[in-house]
């Protein structure tokens, strides 16, 4: 399995903070798992994707194997 982590407003859109999905998972597979509003948001240039804690320079190259964690990261607002 691959663990998806939805951060910030993406958790609201997904209706959950985490989701376990079948491995392996690539970009097209990820979009296929999401309903349209969420997929649209994830496709936008402001959302980044991290695989096991490392941000992907190009999220469409996602290749997550069993046991890995994929985080969906909207723009941050800290402090």
């Amino acid at each position, binding site marked *: 399995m691959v663990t998806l982590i939805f951060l910030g407003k993406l958790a*609201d859109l997904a209706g959950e903070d985490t989701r376990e999905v079948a491995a392996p998972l690539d970009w097209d597979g990820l979009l296929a798992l999401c309903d349209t509003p969420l997929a649209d948001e994830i496709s936008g240039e402001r959302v980044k994707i991290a695989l096991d804690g490392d941000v992907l320079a190009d999220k469409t190259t996602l290749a997550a194997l069993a046991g890995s964690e994929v*985080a969906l990261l909207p*723009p941050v*607002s*800290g402090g």
Partner: protein
Amino acid sequence: MAISVQLLDTPFNPGALVGPFTNAHPGLGGVCTFVGEVRGGNGVEALELTHYELMTRPGMKKLASLAAQRFGLMGLLMVHRTGVMHPGEPIVLVSACAQHRRGAIDAVDFCMDHLKARSWFWKREKRSGAGPNGGWHWIEPRADDHTDLARWQ
């Protein structure tokens, strides 16, 4: 050189942290401390900060090391809240000590700009009132946050 990075999910007292931090660095020439608090007004009732354990803490540690090296610090304390907070509660504390004031002041400024614009936190606020203006709203990053960050490049 002592670096301390803390993520806390309960309220903290900045003074109780800065005192011991300062005492731990005898011989320092200056300490600079910034404390950010939940702003009141505009109907804000609460603020919630979410983080991502796998990235937030490592990112803060990397930032702290970078600042310590860049500004030649003797010590750096970086504390950030997560969870639900109310107006008047501290969200963030950065305290730096150095042999000279400029290093300490600049290090805190540098850390705050990076915490605001680059660190892995997501913020939403709860506003009073009914309808679309009330309830929880995610906070979008401000353009100013990125302008502030550009000062260090």
